[in-house]
């Protein structure tokens, strides 16, 4: 490596000599970082190719002229620049940095220098990810990367975020990206057992050339995660300890809830519930007013500890970390606890020809999740109780399970809902224990100087044990007790083991001949994944003996009845992929480069010849700044034009886990035996199949421009892309007369996503002498999502019982609704717009229109500021999404007449239309067409938002204070997440990837204090 660099160096130096004409002098100085002088820093003169390196004491000396810009670069640190002025001495303090890593870019299975990359990528480094209070690292990179739409749709600690890269390219197929961890395309969609502090970089690959080498699973983009590793060098051991403590709270909605007195009045007006039996005086004297949101949602706390050890050596290095993380959810009963150990070892032979890497990680997490979210299960969904529990009910009603049952039996309607849920808090437990073991290895051997053989062998085991227990004698157990059943309650225990295996063989040949550089590689890859599951439900638990998750207190089957017969099930699903692929790179003079790849993939999800798909890509770049004519354009430092075109495949025919859609297979009509189908006999469940099922293909082209200007103060990238998905997987509606409502198949539908992405950074203030920097960052994307090619059914494909439509020329799954106009002042009924534009109370099917907007934002991104001054730092991140709308069914609920008398509603219901209150926008409580509300856009609400996603304020203790201690670095920080939103959305959380929100778990607002010590 070193020798190669020198060789290039000398050649270019010779070329650039001819332009040197100004007065030169010798500039000297010392380059240091927080821990002292840094040897080996490259110092070059911008625009020329002249350069040197710092010596062992960090000193350098270089010939330069006034006005020259010196660039200081070192792996793992931010690049610094200085302009040569009158002084002959320039001392530089380098910063550990995010941008330093951007010097290297992931391109398929290899990393190349940013300069040589033809691809569009976006990455964040450990600096961004470390010490953020998110259990799930994916959540942390939200808003940091242009074109990557990450949505946390639940406040459940550690839960999976929705990640959409460059728009949704499918309607009912899978839109999850592929996750590659340390070279292992593990396909894992849960990150909760991974310690975010172990992550060095997360890169998102977006264009065809970048993802071509993951082409069999990369059609929705690829997220490449690399974990930390030690550096080769002189023996050295460093330690790092960081800890955090945080509190979380609910983001409050803007809904206008009725208080107890208002609700009782509404009930009186409507004639239902307790209020209907009270006089005005009694209502005025009513003094219970329970805030059920406050009852079920709590302040939460989180704690984390991380210790890492980095060991450097000449031929072997290691990175070892231990982590503990604990976060309670803001919703009672939820939380996550995680223990992680990671050990990354890198080694090489003395002659540098053999290199290896073994990354091992073990994670153990215990997760308590809320159940029945989004469902109307009044006795199970805590969020429902919180959102619509009647405020005039006191939690003191609850005096044990029997009291809940009594209250339920003796109160009208479903008023007892929150009391039932209080009982569930006491008498229901669940937990998912997960053990995750990741082993990622890489062995390479330089057969000759140019020919490298490489083997990767990766495995991951995800062992999952879930239990849930409904205790004997609990409200639910009593309610659903059968006659003669002595032992009530049940316990589920579900064991699940997922195994992922990946094996890659690669031969790589690279050669430089004069101005020409070639690289050619051939690969074979085998991916295997399987899941085994075995589940049982024990029915009948013996009170007093039963202990959750132990088997104690299980009642056995008796001869008299079948109440205690356990239910069991087991499963085994596999998926295999075989791939052959190769790529070819060519570079001329570091100015022009092309990359081409071709791959052939086979998948066990399909059958026969259709198992195989061929995919390819080409890409090119032009480093314009290398051209001679650019030498006069001094304000431009880097300017690179790049483009790519290619195809990638997708085999995941439906959404859900990586194993969804495999069993029963979708390529044939399948008959599976079903038990107890009729009169105790077996039956056949038929799933209709689509014999020509094959790979879905996404064709993408991308053009981009990378730039750095004004000595690097302004930097950024601009991309235009066009992604088109064909042979699109779709659960396409079919005539029910064929025996099913739809059939998963490759369809004529084409989904096109095209858009632009812009990523900018600008150093407003950059004064290294005074130690002040102020940087503005912004990224944004515009995505235009369009459906075309639908030939049948008037070019429309409906979903969700006709509530959503994908129509030629429009975006996917737009709400298909009546336009709501308001309240008819004459009778209080709802008015809708008919097809000819007139108001009507009784619209028909022909009056429905697509809304022209959906749950996928057209504009989204993030922006923020970084400010540093003598060790103090402030950084902020705002995220935003525009042109997005969802159904707010939580709001709908507050206007639901059926809820009056048993649940709470909005205080606006006091303003409902009556014959004496005709000028209102709340329909009459007795309106006959209220049922059409949900088929209209009445509760389709703008969900655009700008959110202050993260603010950090901290202090890096300067070196001078640490000199006499064992420590080499100390930093303190205070941060807040989700501090405020600017939005028209009235609900708890404007951010969601769902088409409609109801009874969901909002993401919390978090405040965290952190301490980070290096020694």
């Amino acid at each position, binding site marked *: 490596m070193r020798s190669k660099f020198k060789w290039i160096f000398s050649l270019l130096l010779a070329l650039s000599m001819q332009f040197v004409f100004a007065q030169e002098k010798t500039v000297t100085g010392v380059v240091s970082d927080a821990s002292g002088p840094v040897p080996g820093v490259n110092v070059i003169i911008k625009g020329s190719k002249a350069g040197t390196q710092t010596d062992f004491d960090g000193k350098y000396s270089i010939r330069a002229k006034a006005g020259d810009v010196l660039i200081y670069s070192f792996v793992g640190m931010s690049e610094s620049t200085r302009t040569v002025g009158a002084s002959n001495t320039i001392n530089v303090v380098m910063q550990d940095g995010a941008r330093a890593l951007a010097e290297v870019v992931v391109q398929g299975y290899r990393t190349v220098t940013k300069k040589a990359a033809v691809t569009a990528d976006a990455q964040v480094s450990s600096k961004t990810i470390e010490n953020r209070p998110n259990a799930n690292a994916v959540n942390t990179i939200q808003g940091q990367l242009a074109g990557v739409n990450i949505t946390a749709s639940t406040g459940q600690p550690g839960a999976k975020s929705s990640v959409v890269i460059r728009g949704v390219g499918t309607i009912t197929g899978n839109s999850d990206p592929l996750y590659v961890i340390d070279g292992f395309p593990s396909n894992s969609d849960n990150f909760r057992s991974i310690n975010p502090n172990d992550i060095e970089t997360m890169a998102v690959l977006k264009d065809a050339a970048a993802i071509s080498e993951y082409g069999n699973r990369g059609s929705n983009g690829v997220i490449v995660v690399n974990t930390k590793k030690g550096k080769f060098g002189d023996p050295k051991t460093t330690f790092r300890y960081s800890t955090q403590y945080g509190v979380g709270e609910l983001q409050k909605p803007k809904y206008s809830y009725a208080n107890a007195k208002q609700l009782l009045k509404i009930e009186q007006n409507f*004639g239902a519930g307790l209020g209907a039996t009270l006089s005005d005086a009694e209502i005025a004297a009513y003094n219970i007013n329970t805030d059920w949101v406050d009852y079920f949602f709590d302040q939460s706390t989180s704690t984390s500890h991380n210790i890492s050890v980095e060991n450097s050596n000449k031929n072997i290095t290691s990175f070892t970390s231990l982590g503990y993380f604990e976060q309670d959810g803001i919703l009672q009963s939820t939380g996550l606890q995680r223990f992680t150990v990671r050990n990354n070892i890198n080694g090489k032979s003395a002659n540098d*020809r*053999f290199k290896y890497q073994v990354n091992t990680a073990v994670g153990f997490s215990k997760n308590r999740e809320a159940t029945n979210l989004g469902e*109307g299960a009044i006795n199970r969904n805590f969020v429902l109780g919180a959102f619509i529990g009647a405020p005039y009910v006191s939690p003191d009603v609850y005096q044990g399970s029997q009291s809940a049952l009594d209250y339920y039996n003796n109160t009208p*309607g479903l008023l007892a809902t929150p009391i039932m849920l209080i009982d569930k808090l006491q008498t229901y437990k669940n937990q998912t224990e997960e053990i995750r073991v990741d082993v990622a290895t890489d062995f390479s*051997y330089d057969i000759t100087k140019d020919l490298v*053989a490489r*083997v990767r062998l990766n495995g991951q085991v995800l062992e999952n044990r879930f239990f849930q227990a409904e205790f004997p004698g609990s409200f639910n157990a009593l*309610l*659903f*007790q*059968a*006659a003669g*059943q002595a032992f009530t309650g049940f316990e589920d225990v579900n064991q699940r083991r997922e195994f992922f295996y990946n094996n890659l063989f690669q031969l790589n040949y690279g050669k430089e001949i004069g101005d020409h550089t070639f690289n050619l590689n051939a690969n074979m890859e085998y991916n295997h994944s399987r899941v085994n599951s075995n589940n049982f439900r024990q029915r009948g638990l013996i009170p007093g003996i039963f202990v959750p998750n132990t088997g104690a207190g299980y009642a056995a089957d008796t001869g008299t009845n*079948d109440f205690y017969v356990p239910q069991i099930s087991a499963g085994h699903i*596999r998926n*295999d992929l*075989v791939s052959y692929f190769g790529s070819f790179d060519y570079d001329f003079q570091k100015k022009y480069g092309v990359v081409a790849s071709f791959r052939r993939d*086979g*998948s*066990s999800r399909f059958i026969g010849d259709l198992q195989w798909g061929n995919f390819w890509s080409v890409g090119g770049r032009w480093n314009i700044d290398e051209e001679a004519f650019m030498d006069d354009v001094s304000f431009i430092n880097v300017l690179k034009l790049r483009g790519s075109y290619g195809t990638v495949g997708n085999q995941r025919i439906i959404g859900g886990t990586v194993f969804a859609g*495999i*069993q*029963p297979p979708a390529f*044939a*009509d*399948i*008959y*599976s*035996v079903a038990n*107890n*189908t*009729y*009169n105790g*006999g*077996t*039956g*056949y469940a038929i799933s209709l199949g689509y014999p020509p099922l094959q790979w879905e293909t996404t064709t993408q082209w991308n053009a981009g421009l990378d730039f750095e200007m004004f000595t690097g103060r302004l930097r950024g990238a601009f991309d235009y892309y066009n992604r088109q998905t064909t042979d699109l997987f779709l659960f396409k*509606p079919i005539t*029910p*007369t*064929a*025996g*099913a*409502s*739809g059939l998963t198949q490759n369809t004529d539908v084409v989904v096109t996503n095209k858009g632009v992405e812009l990523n900018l950074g600008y150093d407003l203030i950059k004064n290294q002498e005074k130690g002040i920097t102020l940087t503005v960052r912004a990224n944004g994307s515009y995505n235009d999502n369009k459906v075309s090619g639908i030939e*049948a*059914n008037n070019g429309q*494909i409906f979903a969700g019982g*006709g509530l959503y439509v994908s129509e030629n020329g429009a975006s996917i799954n737009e709400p298909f609704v009546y336009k709501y106009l308001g309240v008819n002042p004459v009778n209080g009924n709802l008015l809708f717009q008919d097809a000819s534009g007139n108001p009507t109370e009784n619209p*028909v*099917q022909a009056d429905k229109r697509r809304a022209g907007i959906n749950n996928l934002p057209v504009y989204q991104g993030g922006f923020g500021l970084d400010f540093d001054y003598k060790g103090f730092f402030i950084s902020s991140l705002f995220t935003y999404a525009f042109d997005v709308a969802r159904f707010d069914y939580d709001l709908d609920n507050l206007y639901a007449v*059926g*809820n009056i008398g048993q*649940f709470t509603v909005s205080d606006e219901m006091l303003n409902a239309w009556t014959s004496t209150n005709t000028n209102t926008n709340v329909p009459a409580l*007795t*309106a006959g067409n209220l*049922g*059409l*509300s949900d088929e209209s856009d009445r509760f389709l609400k703008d969900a655009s938002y700008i959110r202050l996603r993260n603010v950090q304020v901290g202090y890096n203790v300067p070196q001078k204070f640490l000199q006499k201690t064992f420590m080499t670095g100390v930093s303190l920080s205070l941060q807040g997440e989700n501090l405020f939103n600017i939005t028209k959305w009235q609900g708890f959380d404007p951010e969601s990837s769902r088409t409609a929100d109801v009874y969901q778990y909002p993401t919390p607002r978090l405040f965290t204090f952190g301490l980070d010590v290096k020694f």
Partner: protein
Amino acid sequence: MKKIFGILLVSLTLFVSCDDEVLEPFTPGSLTEDVAIQNSTDLSRLVNSSMNILTNRTEYAFSSIFTDEAAPGFNNGGQGINGDYVFLMNVSNASAEAIWNTQYFGLARINRVIGFADGIVPVSPADTQLIERSKAEALVLRALAHMKVLSYFSTNPKDDAALAGVLADRVILATETPQRVTNAEFYTLIHSDLDAAIAIFNANTAPAYANKTYYPSKVLAQALKARAYALKGDYVKAEAAADLVITTSGITLANTQATYNAVFHTHNEPANTEVIFRLRRTVQQNAQATNLHNGWASVANRRNGSPFYEVSRSLYNKLAATPEDYRLSTTVHLTGTSPSLIDPDYATSNDVRNSDIIVLHKHGGQSAATATNGFNPDFMVSRLSEMYFIKAEARVQAADLVGAGLALKSVLDARFPTAQAAPVFASAQAAWKGILDERRKELSFEGFRFIDLKRLGTLAGASLERDPSEYASSAWNFPAGNPANLPMNSFKFALPIPQSELNANSGIQQNPGY
């Protein structure tokens, strides 16, 4: 180092050679058609699945809520009160969709039985009988499903030229976009299927089922012929078919409170009593989402069983007018655990929701549970009493009002402890009304009321009978639920072709008004 390279090469070779094996789809238990259907047992599995699909409570619940059998219950959490109960009927109506889908999903399996039956090679003469019987059962079910489609979706079942639904006399492919056909074509298929089934049953020697009411039978085929002729208004044939069932089936009406209760509450009535066909449910199938009784109550047929629909006041008043009528206590939960709360002053009560709670008891009575392995009721499909009503209707049509009264008397005698006087009708309209009312009491909550109003409402000069306390009181204030809003000639008596069909087949003929 050389060793590693060696292994690498060996691995590559191995790798290339076993592609096909590696990529073989692993799909245990997923059978393709040719493997799945090989013998009589396989065929009976398809029949079982067909009947499982047809066991759908939507029709039972809809027919009671959209009409005047049920009224909102005090535990109503919004179910249907902005929809079916206030006659909100459009293309998105979930009940219309469930009724349509149920029949056609069932028919897709039924047509496979009929199609495969002839292709299976029997292993023995006894096996031939089993295969034949499965085919006959499928033919009866096919007729039944078509009759349901016609009943709910045809604008006028008596008009041969009116549209019925999609004729499913074969396996329809997923790629097709079928059109509706006329009632005439439906009736032709219904009768030819039933005749073919009767011919097979006549010659069939397969061993009898332990409980023959659980499976389609010759008697059911005959009873369905009677029902189909009555639906068409062809009363001469209807009466002949009904008489055939009455005189030759060997089945008699349940004539004590205990046996009548047993028919509905415990299903252990003596053999050959009352029931011609019921869709059987076992305790293993107990599930809140599919149990029949959970169509009206979340938990149990008790006041504290979370009834979100109750027996309507108007039906209760009709039944309670003659308290010794067995059907009163079979239909309404009057005594025992957490019984109904009957408010004599319901008409003036200011809280009728909580003061007057009339709990439905018919399906499963107190046995019905919503619990694992708990009893859940069967779905009654055809009972003997319906044959007497068809006979009565035929008598009216033949201008024999006395005969109509006598036919009703046969049922009444069985439903009271003492013999009843034959109803006397002053006019044909009064007779139609008398029959309609008697059907209402006898067949309530069994999925007849909507179709009966559609068939007989206008002839009887009837209207929907809802008590004002259930749509115009302070507790239940639903102006849109006023029965005046559903006149007997409303277009809503022909349900819309639902969204599920339009999703893929928007060119299908829609009914007027939608």
